[in-house]
């Protein structure tokens, strides 16, 4: 079975994200000839050495300024599987793009400059990885060529980053010394780093797994829409668990009970369907069901129904939040207006507590909040069923992303 893993590469601006991506593509033979030629010509015109960082910088402005503006995607392949790299910009101005990229990743590489060590965006990005619940993380200490491949310097930076990550509850699987520019320990082990007995970046990535555990959790089927084309079909994508023809199901929050008459696909009837699949179901009885309801299975643990949750939010809108403003709360297919009470506010660049009882949240600040929704919502612990344990807050556009940390007052 072919497999594709989505990874994100994050870290401080200029610590070498784009160069690492260029190197990964080059070393896995994934660069089109025309692209390679274009980069060579471009670098020659500038009188520079060939710089793999230019692989990703497609926009005119990016090349002029040397910063990656947005999240882009590229693909490469190892013997084990295919990878999609979501490049996330390091520049603070583009933080919401970085979060967008990281929210779609299954694993992450945090890159740190061997000379500079941990910087502002290293902290902020690491914090975001922790908040998004990314567990599969490797750290690479880049630009080892600039510190003469010294083991001492690697150990110093390693110590600094481990201590910091520990405070965020992130335990990296590996910490690898590399030079993206020279190609050390990306695809191959090199003599210059012969004191390091860990894996290369590619070996470390191949050690990650696709998490398929969601199948083993209780059934959660958030209703996306109800169609009445020829038959009445309840449509949605299964968030967790397995649904089987004939199952006794309970619709939350109404708690109406019925049975699955059939599981529908175009021109096909399925016996069962599992987490991640978009399906339609027809029920035995005509129960009232609408978008935002969550269908569960009788006999399995019930979800939590509440109108008050504790949350941890990352604000990413230039217009600050002030208590009293009502915003839209979106979780899976549920959408409901809410009031927010702000508690602790943290500066995401240095993780210092700014206030224990704030009333506003500004751009790029992190806050602990209490959210009261207009109607009861169906939610879960983020670590159990992520898609029902995370939410966004919306004005005209999404203004914050968050994780549920508790239920009730």
């Amino acid at each position, binding site marked *: *079975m*072919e*497999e*594709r893993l989505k990874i994100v590469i994050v870290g401080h601006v200029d610590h070498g994200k784009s160069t690492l991506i260029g190197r990964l593509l080059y070393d896995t033979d994934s*660069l*089109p*000839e*025309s*692209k390679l030629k274009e980069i060579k010509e471009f670098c020659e015109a500038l009188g520079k050495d060939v710089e793999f960082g230019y692989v*990703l910088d*497609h*926009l*005119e*402005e990016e090349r002029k300024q040397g910063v990656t*503006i*947005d*999240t*882009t*995607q*590229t*693909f490469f392949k190892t013997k084990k599987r*295919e990878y*999609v790299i979501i490049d996330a910009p390091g520049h603070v101005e583009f933080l*919401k*793009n970085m*979060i*967008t990229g990281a*929210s*779609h990743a299954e694993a992450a590489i945090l890159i740190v400059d061997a000379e500079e060590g941990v910087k502002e965006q290293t902290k902020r990005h690491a914090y975001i990885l922790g908040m998004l619940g990314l567990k599969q993380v490797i750290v690479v200490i880049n630009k080892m060529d600039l510190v003469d491949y010294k083991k001492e310097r690697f150990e110093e930076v390693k110590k600094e980053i481990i201590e910091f990550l520990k405070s965020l509850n992130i335990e990296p699987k590996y910490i690898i010394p590399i030079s993206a520019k020279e190609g050390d320990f990306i695809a191959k082990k090199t003599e210059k780093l012969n004191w390091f007995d860990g894996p290369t970046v590619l070996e470390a990535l191949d050690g990650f797994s696709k998490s*398929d555990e969601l199948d083993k959790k209780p059934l959660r089927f958030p209703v*996306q*829409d109800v*169609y009445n*084309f*020829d038959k009445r*079909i309840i*449509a949605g*994508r299964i968030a967790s668990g397995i649904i089987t023809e004939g199952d006794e199901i309970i619709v939350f929050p109404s708690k109406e009970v019925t049975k699955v008459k059939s599981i*529908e*696909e*175009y*021109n096909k009837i399925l016996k069962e369907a*599992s987490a*991640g*699949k*978009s399906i*339609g179901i027809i029920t035995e009885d005509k129960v009232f069901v609408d*978008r935002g309801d969550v269908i569960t299975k009788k006999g399995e643990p019930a979800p939590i129904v509440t109108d008050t949750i504790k949350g941890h939010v990352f604000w*990413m809108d230039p217009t600050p939040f002030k208590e009293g403003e009502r915003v839209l709360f*979106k979780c899976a297919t549920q959408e409901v207006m809410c009031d927010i009470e702000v508690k602790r506010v943290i500066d995401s660049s240095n993780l210092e507590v700014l206030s224990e009882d704030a009333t506003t949240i500004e751009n790029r600040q992190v806050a602990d909040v209490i959210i009261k929704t207009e109607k009861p919502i169906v939610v879960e612990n983020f670590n159990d069923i992520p*898609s029902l344990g*995370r939410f*966004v807050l*919306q004005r*005209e*556009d*999404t203004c914050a*992303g968050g994780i549920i940390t508790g239920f009730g007052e």
Partner: protein
Amino acid sequence: MDKLDALESESIYIIREAYRKFHKLGMLWSIGKDSTTLLWLVKKAFFGKVPFPVIYIDTGLHFKEMYEFRDMCVKKWGLNLIISKNYEEAEGLGIGPSDKLKCCAIRKTDALKKTIADYKFDALLLGIRRDEHGVRAKERFFSPRNKDFYWDYKNQPPELWDQYKTQKESEQHIRVHPLLQWTEVDIWEYIKREKLPVNPLYFAKNGKRYRSLGCKPCTSPVDSNASNIDEIIEEIKKSKITERSGRAQDKEEAHAMQKLRALGYM
């Protein structure tokens, strides 16, 4: 979950979100392999129905095989087809493929602007993919455009997890891209699995085939002996030449695609 199953389910989720959230939804169908795959996914999302119009932009310069393929699918799938065109104006002004940027802008972009205004579409499904072109890699699944089609790629709204921009501001329309995560190989593998119809232009004849379809004067075939889908998949997997290498508008000048897209090109 298998790679193609995962891609299919994600795309169907996005298509259903767009249908639920926008009052006046349409879909752009270029007759090519990607948007024909998208059309199939729409049918799957709605259990065989295509519950909104399908828009085809006729530049007046397409291959005869494309028109034939279009008419075959319209009949087979019972589509509500809108033909969007502005080539009479281009011809009146004498603008043709010798000025590629202008020709694309007037025959495609301006035609679509008119159609959006005429039918008051507030969102459009498009079959673009991130791996096709560097600039397309910057796209979101739900991407707002203003009335002049301007794409503010530096200041795009965040798109966390599967929460999309489904609220449009006045004067905007939203471009929805359900195939963003698919690659060229994924598309062909899926066409094979689902037994979708394929335009004969994609298969090699006399050592040449079209890898990407567009207007006749600006689309060249690539060297190839791939005469069936398996051979095409094999060829792309080995190839180090980009998919759109036969598309003239991409390389007219540095960053031409970026300029075209900022002007509203697809």
